[in-house]
């Protein structure tokens, strides 16, 4: 038993840390740290900096222009990025579509789409959920009907994250209503500029605009945009779900948020003492830290198994379940540490150059919004209930 990273892995961590320190624009890091809204260009700016270094495709195999890093190095890289408050890499193209194209796409599709998602030409979004198909995704109804060299797509997708910026959407569509629901689904790439597509914003409870509804009315899509075989889309989507499992827990991000919370609690006062010394608050803070420490080791165990080629099991469900609950608890404690001032909405303090008074302690203007926004994490990507079903089904086996 050895819980340490190897010397080579530790050197790699130092290399990544130093590079980020030298290349991450300070104003981007501040925005990420303060949970301030991030524009399209800011996300792309950081991706291009990474691309130039060759690290944007850190999770891709070398044959597709990736780094070829194994799960441990990928984890270290993600961990350092999160702790340094780097803007997140958009997962939709690089992490979700790319593995599917690499495994099931044609050479032409790979050559065309992969470079364009790296250099910022194509912004991808995901077309999975529908109004009637959330947890029960396989019941999806958006239809693609073959018509000569094209498919004609009709239907509606929802919860499309950052679809307002998207150039392309990868859709799960129904191409057959025969047999099991899962067997009539195909994986289709659709140009968002196609006539017949309408994107409508969904405003969330924190007032933000992150997700959208996407409507398809007689949208003509070249048949060559089908990925793999017709009616095999469910298999590809499932491949995607099990593919990303090593950093689903967000350990680095939670440590960064916890550090920030600890600093805040040391500055806030209750009964003349720092809040961090208040027994009730300190106990809550300690409990979430302990959960996080345990989860970190759970994550490392999964990582170690993956590095030696272990097959994926229930780990990604466990890590998703734990990771989101820990994340939510930290946002709850952060909101609470602000006391009465958590009620104030003063977005102007996050504007560049603002140097007026603050109602909430500096950097925490959006803490309540973040708390409410994070309610989504136990709902999206397979709700906690679905993750628990998966875990029990696989382990109890009934």
């Amino acid at each position, binding site marked *: 038993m050895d819980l340490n990273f190897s010397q080579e892995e530790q050197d790699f961590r130092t290399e990544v840390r130093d590079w980020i320190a030298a290349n991450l624009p300070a104003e981007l890091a501040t925005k990420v740290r303060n949970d301030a809204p991030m524009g399209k260009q800011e996300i792309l700016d950081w991706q291009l900096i990474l691309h130039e270094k060759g690290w944007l495709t850190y999770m891709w195999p070398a044959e597709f222009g990736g780094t070829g890093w194994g799960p441990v190095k990928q984890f270290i890289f993600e961990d350092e990025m999160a702790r340094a408050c780097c803007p997140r890499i958009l997962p939709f193209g690089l992490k979700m579509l790319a593995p599917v194209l690499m495994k099931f796409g044609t050479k032409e599709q790979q050559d065309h789409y992969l470079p364009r998602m790296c250099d910022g030409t194509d912004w991808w979004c995901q077309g999975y959920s529908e109004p009637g198909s959330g947890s029960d995704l396989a019941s999806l109804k958006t239809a693609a009907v073959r018509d000569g060299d094209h498919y004609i797509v009709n239907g509606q997708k929802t919860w499309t994250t950052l679809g307002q910026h998207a150039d392309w959407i990868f859709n799960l569509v129904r191409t057959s209503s025969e047999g099991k629901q899962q067997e009539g689904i195909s994986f289709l790439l659709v140009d968002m500029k196609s006539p017949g597509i309408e994107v409508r914003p969904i405003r969330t409870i924190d007032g933000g605009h992150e997700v959208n509804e996407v409507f398809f009315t007689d949208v003509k899509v070249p048949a060559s945009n089908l990925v793999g075989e017709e009616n095999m889309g469910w298999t590809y989507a499932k491949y995607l779900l099990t593919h990303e499992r090593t950093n689903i827990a967000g350990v680095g991000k939670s440590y960064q948020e916890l550090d920030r919370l600890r600093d805040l609690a040391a500055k806030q006062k209750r009964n003349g003492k720092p809040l961090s010394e208040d027994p009730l608050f300190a106990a809550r803070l300690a409990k979430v830290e302990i959960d996080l420490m345990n989860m970190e080791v759970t994550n490392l165990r999964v990582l170690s198994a993956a590095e030696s080629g272990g097959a994926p099991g229930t780990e990604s469900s466990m890590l998703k379940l734990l990771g989101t609950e820990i994340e939510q608890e930290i946002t709850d404690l952060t909101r609470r540490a602000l006391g009465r001032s958590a009620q104030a909405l003063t977005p102007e303090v996050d504007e560049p150059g603002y140097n007026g008074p603050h109602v909430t302690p500096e950097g925490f203007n959006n803490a309540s*919004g973040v708390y409410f926004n994070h309610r989504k994490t136990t709902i999206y990507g397979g709700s906690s209930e679905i993750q628990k079903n998966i875990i029990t089904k696989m382990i109890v086996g009934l």
Partner: protein
Amino acid sequence: MDFTQTETRRMLADTIERYLRDQYPLMPRVEAGNSETGYQQAHYDGLAELGVMAALFSEDQGGFGGDGFDIAVVFEEMGKRLVNEPVMDNALIPGAILAAAGKTDQVEEIIGGAARYALAAEEPHALYDLAEVDTTAQLSENAWRLNGSKTVVKYANGCDGFIVSARTDAGIGLYMVNAGDASLRSYTTTDGGRASELTLDNTPSTLIAENGADLLAEAQARAIVALSAEALGIMLTIREMTIEYLRTRKQFGLPIGKFQALQHRMAEMLVEIEQARSAVINAANVMTTPGAARDRIMAATKYSIGRIGRLVSEESIQMHGGIGMTWEYDLGHYAKRLIMIDHEWGDQDFHLARFIELGQAA
């Protein structure tokens, strides 16, 4: 033993319920926080006309209620419809303080809806402790001059005056500041209301009462009954929405309420809402009998409401899924207010500590 409300209170509840159902849609209320005052004057006046403000005060104060259960009934009904008219902040709280200080004229104006005041008691970084007062009062040329700052004074814009807590060598007193004499910086609040930071820079004022701590304890007891009853009303509406959703939303070919995972979540929420109702009854029952025993019950109630409020907000959103996260759907607005109630007059940790402390003292 009798847990039924009096006929008068039932009629009052029905009157408020009918008015709000017919005339108080949600979206104008949600957007009201962006206006200068943060509320809808026509509805504030409407509620005053219905006798809502009069129900908050006893007969010798010029009202027809003033008991804990009168306040609970009013705020439960307003919570059900997510009312953010500043009945608590601009009428109940300042009115209770002014009544206790013998300022009957001002109480009468409040009851009629003709005047609004706001209590400015909490200071930045005090974390709910109203005894943490750095603001000072000094007598000079026959006026008390105040220096300091107060945080998140709700619905301060447009008020006739502010009741400010300030320290002298003798302790914490309460002072009236004319609206025009204080400097305000206003903003929208997370729950769609409005609040201000109040700065006092040698600001003239008149003394209301020297025994500030006693009056603040009276105000706090009323605030806790009002906020807790409001929270209960919110929970009852969330409960209805969630029942409806579990019955009608289908996944895997079944109403989602057929799935045991959600049945158990729902059962826990239903049980806890009953606990919340009992907590409100406990507080309302002792509101007008000052002392450590009352304050311990107040702490127990506010703690319970904070804890259960979080559970109900989070669980109801979880059971709704994505739709519960949207601005367009009512639930999120109710959940936000329910969570923000924990950020007024002490959160669950504050009151749990207070409960322990008061228990040791008893």
